[in-house]
């Protein structure tokens, strides 16, 4: 029972408290680039989620085989294989989506959410937990993209999922589908999610060093032993 509950926690943390885009501020580039329409945002979210779950499972299964010194190249090879599979599938079955996503589909290889989860979670947790973590993060990523693209497409193009909305499509505010509008929506959405997380007693995602990071509890860098500060001051006075 206890294990079940913690698995659910691994899943649900990705949606709001540790939402990869809105709280950890990872994967900003595909977020801003593909949220001009709901269709491409959902496509991006799903493709990245599939890769995330699969690579989390494989990396977690191989975590005792991969030597620590070459883990990053090893992770990248695993991720790249799954991205290639997903890309081939998208090209074969939904060529339209492939055209919409363009270069951002192969760029999932270097999406920092995926490498980040591999490094922070899959590399040191069992397979099932890693799969659930990947799923939660994937859902969080897709939800964030969906929300952003909904706002941007409705206001900026006057349509939703390609279907035009009567009054709004006469004079859409073009700025919302341009990069500056993307940043506006991103910022406002981030503020909202921060507010929700704060109301649950979590620190806001701000540039306030390691302590304020939503991932502080599970981060290797943060939990590593700190170098003794006294030694340094002695050198300075010597």
């Amino acid at each position, binding site marked *: 029972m206890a294990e079940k509950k913690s698995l659910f926690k691994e899943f649900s943390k990705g949606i709001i408290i540790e939402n990869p885009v809105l709280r950890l501020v990872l994967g900003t580039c595909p977020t801003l680039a593909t949220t001009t329409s709901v269709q491409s945002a959902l496509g991006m979210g799903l493709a990245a989620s599939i890769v995330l779950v699969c690579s989390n499972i494989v990396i977690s299964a191989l975590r005792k085989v991969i030597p620590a010194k070459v883990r990053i190249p090893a992770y990248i090879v695993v991720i790249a294989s799954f991205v290639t599979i997903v890309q081939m599938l998208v090209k074969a079955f939904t060529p339209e989506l492939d055209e919409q996503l363009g270069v951002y589909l192969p760029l999932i290889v270097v999406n920092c959410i995926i490498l980040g989860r591999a490094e922070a979670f899959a590399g040191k947790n069992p397979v099932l937990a890693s799969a659930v973590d990947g799923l939660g993060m994937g859902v969080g990523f897709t939800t964030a993209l969906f929300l952003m693209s909904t706002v941007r497409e409705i206001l900026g193009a006057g349509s939703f999922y390609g279907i035009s909305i009567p009054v709004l499509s006469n*004079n*859409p*505010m*073009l*700025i*919302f589908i*341009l990069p*500056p509008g993307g940043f*506006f929506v991103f910022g406002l959405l981030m503020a909202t999610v921060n507010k929700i997380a704060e109301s649950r007693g979590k620190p806001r995602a701000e540039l306030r060093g390691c302590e304020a990071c939503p991932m502080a509890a599970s981060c290797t860098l943060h939990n590593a032993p700190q170098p003794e500060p006294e030694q340094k001051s002695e*050198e*300075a006075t010597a």
Partner: protein
Amino acid sequence: MEKRLTVSASPHVRSPETTTGIMLDVILALLPALVMSVVNFGTRALALTGVTVGTAMLAEYLSRKVMKRNNTLGDLSAVVTGLILAFNLPVTLPLWMAAIGSIIAIVIVKQMFGGIGQNFVNPAITARIILMVSFPTAMAKWIAPAQSAWAPDAVTAATPMAVLANVKGGDISAVEGLPSLTKMLIGAHGGSMGEVCAVALLAGALYLLLRRVISPIIPFSFIGTVAVIMLIAGKGNFTFLAYELLGGGLILGAFFMATDYTTSPLNAKGRLIFGIGCGLITAVIRLFGSLPEGVSFSIILMNILVPHIERLTTAKPFGYEKEPKEKEAAKA
């Protein structure tokens, strides 16, 4: 011994100047230009101003209320933002678009960053640029003056800036459609609602300068830089220079928007750099850019640079010496 001194916290000497007073002065200074825009474009100019000012005040009131902050309507800064925004819009702009502009200026640019004195760019200019990018057709519909702007079939006219964009090397006789210089002065030509009448704007600017509400450094270095570059670009043609200085939003921008306290540098040296930068960017956009006018972009770009200008021009305290670098300190 009895205490004879009352010790209280500073400040001990207070200036009679208040934010409300300064804003009131700016509003007074903008009034002649508002009157002239009604003369030139009819009552729709008044309606547009009403909408932007009204929406700006409503947005200020509501956003302060939602964010549980104190009500700042009394400082009149929302009124000034609304007025300046209206001055930057074409008179035919649909009223709901103007209202969106006011909401952007107050809610996103000003209140999201903490309200008056906290915004890092000028709210009215940012709103104008966002409207320009969002509704390019409606924001570029300039009508010829002296006709009712309410009529849907009002005759459109190229602005002097659009005509000047085709001028090569200051040879203005080669292009057609430039109004006479007198018309440029009184504002009988196409353009944004409040920017057309140079005389009214200059009268307002003079009032602000005499009341010492604005410092002359920014506007004069701004306009001066544009003038020097245009004189060189126009190969010494003074008529071309006059059109460049009177046309577009240069006077409105230099005196009323670039001088915004919050978004301009504090000391004289910084202001000089700020003004020259604005002038340079404006001239470059006018001469080489794809847009005919660059005043708003120049001001917003220099607004963003203000923190860096401040860091470069901070006055050194008397007798201040640079602290020795860490390495040297370690050696000693």
